[in-house]
């Protein structure tokens, strides 16, 4: 059994689909933050069989919750303060996301316009479909 120490202040993302933690690490831009992060892959889970966990020691306000909601809104978010779970956050699919994903449509204005933010709008909540604000191309995840 692998043991990872407790964190004093930060966030624990639990019930991440097995194999998704690394892409979440990049989407949250944790590689650019000076914080201690533990990536636990393929942990045993009674609910999911296998799951990933991310333990991030940092000020929780530094993390963009919309990113986590967009990647998987069923992830459990535990906010840790003074070494204990102080809050559990319920995630929702964000209605709009900016500069998290890029439009891949070569005919879209985002492919040529300087410094234009890549904005995607949630157009179908049930099917979890996001479309580019400009060209309305559907975002298809490659993960």
């Amino acid at each position, binding site marked *: 059994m692998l043991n990872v120490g407790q964190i004093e202040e930060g966030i624990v993302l639990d019930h991440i689909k097995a194999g998704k933690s690394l892409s979440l690490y990049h989407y949250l831009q944790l590689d650019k933050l000076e914080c201690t992060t533990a990536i636990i892959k393929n942990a045993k889970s009674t609910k999911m069989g296998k799951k990933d966990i991310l333990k991030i020691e940092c000020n929780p306000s530094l993390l963009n919750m919309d990113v986590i909601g967009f990647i998987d809104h069923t992830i459990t978010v535990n906010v840790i303060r003074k070494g204990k779970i102080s809050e559990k956050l319920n995630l929702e699919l964000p209605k709009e996301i900016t500069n998290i994903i890029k439009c891949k449509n070569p*005919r879209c*204005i985002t492919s040529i316009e*300087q410094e234009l933010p890549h904005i995607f709008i949630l157009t*179908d909540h049930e099917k979890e479909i996001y479309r580019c604000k400009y060209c309305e191309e559907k975002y298809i995840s490659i993960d």
Partner: protein
Amino acid sequence: MKHLMSPLDFSTKELDQIFDIANDIEKNPKKYAHICDGKKLSTLFYEPSTRTRLSFESAMLSLGGSVLGFSDSTSSSASKGESVSDTIRILSCYSDICAIRHPKEGAPLVAASKSTIPVINAGDGGHQHPTQTLTDLLTIRSLKGSLGNFTIGLCGDLKFGRTVHSLIHALIRYPNVSFVFISPEELRIPDYLREDVLNKNNITYKEVSKLDDVIGTLDLLYMTRVQKERFFNEEEYIRLKDYYILNQEKMNLAKSSMFVLHPLPRVNEIAVEVDEDPRAVYFKQVQYGVYVRMALIITLLELV
């Protein structure tokens, strides 16, 4: 300040107001001949489109206004690398309203977000061409008397044709409109339209591959050309383009009250002999295009 990016930007009630103005312009053109005196329309055409650009210019000139702009990107600052955002900020200082055509999808929305004048999308790639849809709706409403209770056949390139997609989106908002889609297997309507638009809204439709089989059931027939520029392969284009040609023989199978519309330009999908048939209204449709653009300019400039 309102812009026009998509035909769905206006409610059916707002569209009715625009169409009422357009019909009034048709009856009383003199009443509107000076309503835009001193106003300027800029036409930012980053790709050539003679018909749409001249329709906008004709509309503004008929309202007493004037026109400035460019007709392809090589004669604009875009060739020096200027962004759409910067160009529209500049044009906002030069004119009162702007019509923009751009090969990149969503460019008019970028322009609208930075503009201090109303922006009209005059076509953005394969995405939207709302003034064509408004033209189609006005033509149908003027000739049929209302926008509902009819069966419309859409024939030709239903896969890539943006005018067809926009028209479907616009028509499902009206009561008792049913669709017959007539196309080769390769050019059928996209899945998302079938599933997310038609099925989701319980719209009556059928898909067939022969115009002859259904033409007698239609109240309206909307013909489209098979656009060469949508194909990567010339052989595919040549194989498909002649599939659905409307000629007098087929017209003889149609109702005497059926109207034929076409967004133009046509290539060979409507035989020239059909032009003389009183049910062929595609050139009237061009005239309605000017009226609806006139009504749109007046509405967006809040002159009525």
